[in-house]
């Protein structure tokens, strides 16, 4: 009987499959999602090509001129066409500062999400697959951590790491790198629980399925079963969580920077900019805080909408 399976699979197959699939179709159907994706993409582009797009380099202290400080946006009276959105108290161009600041925020956001994912997926897999005392221990740790607000946990870790570096002055790390590492560590370590719980639940489900039992019957080592059989099947919900967590990570970094324990003020992120501008809000120089604030809010909103859509699109029950 002639078989229909005669075409050899090509490299374009996964792409073809994706664009044929329900996920892409639902994406095209929803204008809000397309808009959110476009905005997110714009931010990524901005972050990637920042140094080439920005009219000035706000991190170059030599170029800053205090005489340029607190100039209003270009369309207002006293505005300066060189500084489209005005300048802050250091004379930094707001537009450039926002572009560079978004880079910082996104970089830290991504890195911390990656860290949370690795920890969370690892612990969740272990918990669900091995069960017993290990499971109980990991889940109790998770619950304890959840009872503290993430920001407090981040502050705690922040303090500990900085204190550690202070007592070991021989570890010469420059301030900026140190700040980044500390931020990524603190945000990453305080957000792994979501992943762990979801992955644990999915692992428990997959563990009982017959293909896992078949692997046991073949005699495959349990660690290999965990990583090669179960892991690919529990990654679905993780993607959705990661998208939403990215937004939260960006806000967390902004909060920490706002509180003064984030990135150094010489290389401000969006959060730092908001903090700086806060002092000037009521004396009339609103642009220093409003523009970075709006930039942050739009980024977070876009990422959240994207995550919402992804969750619904990947939910097999809604298809």
């Amino acid at each position: 009987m002639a078989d229909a399976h005669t075409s050899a699979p090509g490299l374009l197959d996964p792409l073809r499959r994706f664009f044929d699939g329900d996920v892409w179709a639902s994406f095209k159907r929803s204008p809000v999602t397309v808009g959110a994706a476009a905005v997110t993409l714009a931010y990524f582009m901005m972050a990637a090509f920042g140094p080439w797009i920005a009219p000035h380099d706000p991190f170059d202290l030599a170029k800053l001129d205090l005489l340029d400080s607190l100039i209003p946006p270009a369309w207002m009276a006293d505005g300066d066409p060189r500084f489209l959105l005005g300048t802050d108290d250091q004379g930094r161009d707001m537009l450039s500062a926002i572009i560079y600041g978004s880079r910082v925020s996104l970089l830290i956001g991504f890195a911390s999400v990656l860290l949370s994912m690795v920890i969370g997926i690892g612990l969740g897999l272990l918990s669900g697959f091995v069960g017993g005392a290990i499971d109980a221990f990991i889940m109790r740790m998770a619950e304890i951590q959840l009872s503290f607000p993430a920001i407090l946990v981040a502050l705690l870790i922040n303090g500990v790491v900085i204190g550690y570096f202070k007592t070991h002055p021989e570890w010469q790390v420059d301030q900026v790198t140190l700040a980044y590492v500390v931020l990524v560590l603190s945000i990453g370590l305080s957000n792994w629980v979501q992943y762990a719980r979801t992955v644990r639940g999915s692992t428990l489900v997959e563990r009982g399925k017959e293909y896992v039992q078949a692997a046991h019957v073949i005699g495959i080592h349990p660690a290999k079963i965990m990583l090669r059989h179960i892991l690919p099947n529990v990654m679905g919900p993780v993607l959705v969580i990661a998208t939403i967590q990215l937004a939260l990570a960006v806000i967390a970094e902004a909060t920490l920077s706002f509180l003064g324990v984030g990135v150094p003020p010489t290389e401000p992120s969006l959060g730092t900019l908001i903090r700086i501008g806060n002092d000037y809000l009521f004396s009339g120089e609103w642009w220093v805080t409003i523009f970075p604030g709006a930039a942050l809010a739009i980024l977070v909103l876009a990422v959240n909408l994207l995550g919402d859509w992804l969750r619904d699109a990947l939910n097999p029950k809604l298809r």
Partner: protein
Amino acid sequence: MATPLLQVCNLVVEFPTRRGTLTAVDDISFDIAEGEVLGVVGESGAGKSMTGAAVIGLLEPPGRIASGEILLEGRRIDNLPYEKMRRIRGREIGAIFQDPLTSLNPLYSIGRQLTETIMTHTDMTPTQARARAVELLAEVGIPAPERRVDQYPHQFSGGMRQRVVIALALCVNPRLIIADEPTTALDVSIQAQIIALLKRLCREHGTAVMLVTHDMGVIAETADRVAVMYAGRIAEIGPVREVIKNAKHPYTHGLMGSIPAIGHDADRLEQIPGSMPRLTDIPRGCAFNPRCLHAFDRCRQDRPELIAVEDGQVSCWLYDTSAGRTTAEAKAIVASRSGTAMERADG
């Protein structure tokens, strides 16, 4: 003869999808007389559950009845608005589904679910309804019904739950019951009990049953007539004894041959080469023709209509008397097997 209780005429059920419209039920017609048990049998994908869902008005959107009519006692019910259909459902048409676990609401007691249904469709008072509920539980064979009426579904075993579901379906004496795989989820010994119960009750109340299942054995024990479905169409319909012992359609014949039976010692079972086509790939002409050992040109071109043969109907060109073949000859052809072919790749 009186009007049949249920008449299904040229029913077409479609599912619009992004890639085109899938036809799950492709122009089928059949009747159910008062008090009759009609079995609708077929393998997965044949469209039998869709037919049941269409009759009772519970097609899941985007599935819809694209054309055809469903008449209950001569009145059309397929085009009724939701409210009117809701009243018919339960009162005149009852339903029994496969999984007794999900057919009952786990949060309410059995008694409450029964009395609620009774009071919705009749004007009994709560006390009367409760008495009726206890009566019904006794009728379906639940011991100590006065005590068990206040218990919750999880306190009943699978077989007991299915009995409760039967009680629920019968509580307001519907004229017709749609039973969709009522015994598939139960153990074999419980299956026998439930089938016996269903038969007895329906005979006593004069209820007609549309019994949808893939299990030929259940049909053999319960049905008066049976319709065999294949790829959304009816292949054969007739008295159950005829269809099972003297199957006319090549598919039915092959199906009966592939069922292992005690006492039949065969080294190999008959197997029909290939598998049922997907809804997106229904062949031209007769849907069964690629797998049929007796197919000829006309089969590949024209879809066969239901031809009346003896006590039933068959949708197969072999029985088209205008082609010069007698019924006996056709039956002989179908019954002659050219040996079971060992197929290399089934579709």
